[in-house]
């Protein structure tokens, strides 16, 4: 009677692992939202831009690490430029305006990325083997006959260590405390001399780095093309489930969406006309979660003072 279990677990683990990738995208969102209240819709395009830049160099036989470093520098620069030219002039505007600015930024970057590079499909090879691992061979005593993608594990490890590093950085350093102060109350942070712009620039630059890594991982997995911007659409339900301001939320949200998406696709799709439910399934899952907790699992319920 347990014969469905191994397959279920295989799907679940696969889902969880790809969920880590969603988390990675989501963390960029959370960082920026937490520190400046900006719901950064341009995240997906930044990811595409990073991947495209990197690929365009490696395709021209530039050494992997050189290309990586140059892209890294460019993404940090982009983050700082965006902070300077878009976010700073818009400081203290309504959240809706800030969001719309990032939508505009998204459109701008899209045009730029495709104008500078091209809109063809590129491949990325990070050199990570994509061979499956048969769990039963490695850990026979677990007794689970499950196939897991090696790439997924590697990606999850990279993503996981990024997340861990970031969490530690923001929890235990002076910059981290400053960031938490900024996200608590901008005005007060400025009043005690925390250089807001520097903090924001750091956040945007870090986001740029996250975008690069996520872009490469996603690029290796699904190839680098315009569709990569859809990553942002995967990240959205993740952070909304997790709560816009919570890094742990982004991780948990990613896992939930990753798992439920895979499970839904395998087990439920046939009841819904067959295929393609993954497009809206993540959102429906998120919706169900939000109906229960309107500000996400880890999001703060604001006591509205009147």
């Amino acid at each position, binding site marked *: 009677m347990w014969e469905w279990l191994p397959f279920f677990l295989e799907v679940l683990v696969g889902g969880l692992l790809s969920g880590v990738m969603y988390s990675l995208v989501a963390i960029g969102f959370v960082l920026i939202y937490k520190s400046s209240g900006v719901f950064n819709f341009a995240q997906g395009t930044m990811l595409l831009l990073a991947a495209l830049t990197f690929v365009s160099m490696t395709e021209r036989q530039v050494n992997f690490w050189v290309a990586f470093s140059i892209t890294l520098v460019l993404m940090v620069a982009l983050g700082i430029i965006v902070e300077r030219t878009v976010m700073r002039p818009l*400081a*203290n505007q309504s959240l809706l305006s800030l969001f719309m600015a990032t939508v505009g930024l998204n459109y701008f970057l899209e045009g730029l990325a495709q104008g500078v590079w091209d809109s063809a499909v590129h491949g990325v090879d990070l050199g990570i083997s994509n061979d499956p691992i048969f769990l039963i061979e490695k850990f026979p005593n677990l007794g689970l006959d499950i196939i897991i993608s090696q790439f997924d594990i590697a990606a999850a490890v990279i993503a996981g260590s990024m997340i861990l590093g970031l969490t530690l950085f923001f929890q235990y350093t*002076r910059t981290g*405390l*400053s960031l*938490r*102060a900024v996200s*608590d*109350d*901008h*005005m*007060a*942070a*400025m*009043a*005690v*001399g*925390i*250089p*807001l*712009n520097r903090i924001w620039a750091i956040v945007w630059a870090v986001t740029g780095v996250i975008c690069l890594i996520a872009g490469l991982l996603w690029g290796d997995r699904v190839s680098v093309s315009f569709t990569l911007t859809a990553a942002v659409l995967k990240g959205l339900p993740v952070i909304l489930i997790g709560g816009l301001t919570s890094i742990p939320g982004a991780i948990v949200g990613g896992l939930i969406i990753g798992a439920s998406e895979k499970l839904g696709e395998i087990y439920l799709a046939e009841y819904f006309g067959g295929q393609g439910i993954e497009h809206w399934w993540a959102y429906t899952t998120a919706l169900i979660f939000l109906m229960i907790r309107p500000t996400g699992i880890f999001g703060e319920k604001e006591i509205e003072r009147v």
Partner: protein
Amino acid sequence: MSTDTPILSIKNIEVLYSRVISALHGVSIEVQKGEVVSLLGANGAGKTTTCKAVSRLLEAERGEVSKGSIEYNGVDIKTMSPYDMVKAGVVQVLEGRHIFGHLTVEENLLTGSFIRNADSASVKRDLEYVYSRFNRIKDRRKNLGGLCSGGEQQMVAMGRAMMAKPNLILLDEPSMGLAPQLIEEIFEIVKTLNEEDGVSFLVSEQNANIALKYAKIGYIIENGRVVLKGSAKELSESDSVKEMYMGGGGDEVSFSDVKYYHRRRPCMV
């Protein structure tokens, strides 16, 4: 730098928000070193805007000083950022305290010391010093700031400002919403900080009674313009100030027998 240079000199500034809305037009204020100066006026008169013009927090609210100048220790602060101002020793304690609700009291205080890049030993010394000045918050050092009472929050906010070792504190509406006896306590601390640590204060207040009791010089601001300036004694004895701002304490004003036509001003044309 001669000793006569005022620590703060605001010269006829005009402030615009979003380039169009004029919030201040013609405000001039001087604070001498070691003085407590109070800035009196109703809500919306421009007190907060004046403080923010000095601390440079205006720009974060789309405001700008469009005319006039502000000098701190004789140096024009036009090009300085809020960070530079704190670094130079001017800290604003915001109206409504604005402490970091999700940080503990101690973390709140720590953020104030970042500006100095001090080593941990001296930060620790400063913390102890702040706790000695603000006894009430010592026991609550591990509490989240958001859970402190209004008076405690005000003390945290002032303590946080003290951590930056300022020369001038811009204290915006410290009495707001506090019980009368707590207000006294806060102002007593202001007095101590002023007398023993030599910190100058620009205190913006609605409560003229208390502000003039502790300040040396007072300015009255109405509709974005300084309309009266004088020593605290002069002001607290001035009829117009009594009438406009201190009536609550006086006996002449009665709220129960108010006339409609009080507000009717003489015909303009």
